[in-house]
């Protein structure tokens, strides 16, 4: 048994969120530079140069890449031999979110969905907790902006739609997202499980480092084919035309029911921000 104070988790959530808002992952920057070197769109070069320059400014100034510092999505993978002490884990995570956003001049965008009254501290987080073997705690955070989140979609396909049906739905979703989602995009796709399982898989894929290989040969092929089809759409950086509509497509699967084929597509803008730490 390993004791971990919940306040410790809150502190990491706070630090990781602030860093995530200001530091574009290196792998994303590399993918943007690669795109800049090959892009043929009329405005694509300008747009990609601006995005890369802005990311450098953010690193130097320790200020957010984008004014939409998002809603805090937190994944906690908790070892089953961990014992949390010192209070409520969820409250500690939310306290971390509060401190991150109120003490670092980050935008507070979270509000009641019906009254539209802002919580003024960007809490609560969307928290996903899973129990794993061992005694470690892996904390992953993603400040998720809503320009792209709004363009995400989920569909319960009939099994007869098959892999072609999945591909058509993903491509259609990206096409509908168009310029609004701030391409070049990273696209998380969750296939299978139930409705909510597919959605969580898609979100979790967005936290996958771009260099980590796909889960299987089959998903690797799917990722490659989807990326080709999406980049053939010609939407391009910021929707102004070009070869780079997506930097990556990341697919995860889970077994599903004989009667179903849930597919979730979670769209991530070029500010593909996430950070993690393992305790």
């Amino acid at each position, binding site marked *: 048994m390993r004791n971990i104070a919940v306040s410790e988790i809150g502190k990491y959530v706070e630090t990781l969120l602030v860093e995530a808002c200001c530091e574009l992952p290196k792998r994303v920057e590399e993918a943007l530079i690669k795109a800049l070197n090959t892009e*043929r769109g*009329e*405005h694509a*070069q*300008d*747009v990609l140069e*601006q*995005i890369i*320059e*802005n990311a450098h*400014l*953010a690193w130097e*100034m320790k*200020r*957010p*890449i*984008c*004014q*939409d*510092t998002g809603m805090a999505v937190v994944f906690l993978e908790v070892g089953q031999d961990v014992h949390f002490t010192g209070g409520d884990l969820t409250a500690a995570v939310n306290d971390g979110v509060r401190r991150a956003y109120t003490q*670092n*001049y*980050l*935008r*507070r*965008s979270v509000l009641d969905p019906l009254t*539209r009254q*802002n919580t*003024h501290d960007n809490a609560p987080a969307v928290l996903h907790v899973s129990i794993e073997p061992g005694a470690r705690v892996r904390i992953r955070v993603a400040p998720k*902006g809503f*320009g792209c989140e*709004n363009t995400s979609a989920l569909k319960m396909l009939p099994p007869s739609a098959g892999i072609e049906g999945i591909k058509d739905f993903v491509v259609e979703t990206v096409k509908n997202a*168009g*310029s*609004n989602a*701030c391409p070049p995009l990273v696209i998380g796709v969750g296939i299978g499980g139930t409705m909510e399982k597919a959605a969580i898989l898609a979100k979790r894929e967005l936290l996958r480092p771009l260099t980590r290989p796909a889960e299987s040969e089959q998903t690797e092929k799917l990722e490659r084919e989807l990326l080709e089809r999406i980049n053939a759409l*010609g939407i391009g950086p*910021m*929707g*102004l*035309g070009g070869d780079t509509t997506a930097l990556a497509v990341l697919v995860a699967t889970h077994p599903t029911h004989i009667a179903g084929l849930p597919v979730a597509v979670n769209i991530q*803008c*070029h*500010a593909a921000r996430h950070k993690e730490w393992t305790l």
Partner: protein
Amino acid sequence: MNEQKPPIRLNVPFDKEAPKKLRAGERVLLSGEIYTARDAAHKRITESLRQGGRPPFPLQDACIYYTGPCPAAPGEIIGPCGPTTSGRMDAYTPQLLARGLTGMIGKGKRSQAVKHEIKQRGAVYFAITGGVALLVAQHVLKCELVAFKDLGPEAVYKLTVNELPVIVAVDAAGKDVYER
């Protein structure tokens, strides 16, 4: 890389005829005064106009920038302030165009109704790169609160900008850079 025309320098508030000469796809450097407004501010302004109220800033020949900045950190004129998705303002925009609004800056496509009004009134819609919020902030020389302080990031600010780099997305002839 493609050969590009040098950007056009333009002042806001606009000279009457200036927006009509712009063509979709042209690069423009905007200097002068623009007003921030996004979802909640649009809702309040248009509701007030319907009840015979006055807008919080003169709409005639004005330019609105769709943004909700981060709070300014010590030493900053304005916090990071990139554009938000313009399409969410489509429901309100025709009312503002009817009152003299001439320019809009944001990101993403506009509705047919908005494009129709832009054409009718000789207005212009500019696109600015999304998610480059710190770069945009470097072009802001001055930021003054104008209205709706309670809306926080959605309050209306008057920004004095210098050579803000934008692209003509919908021109006064109704041509749209997103339609290819």
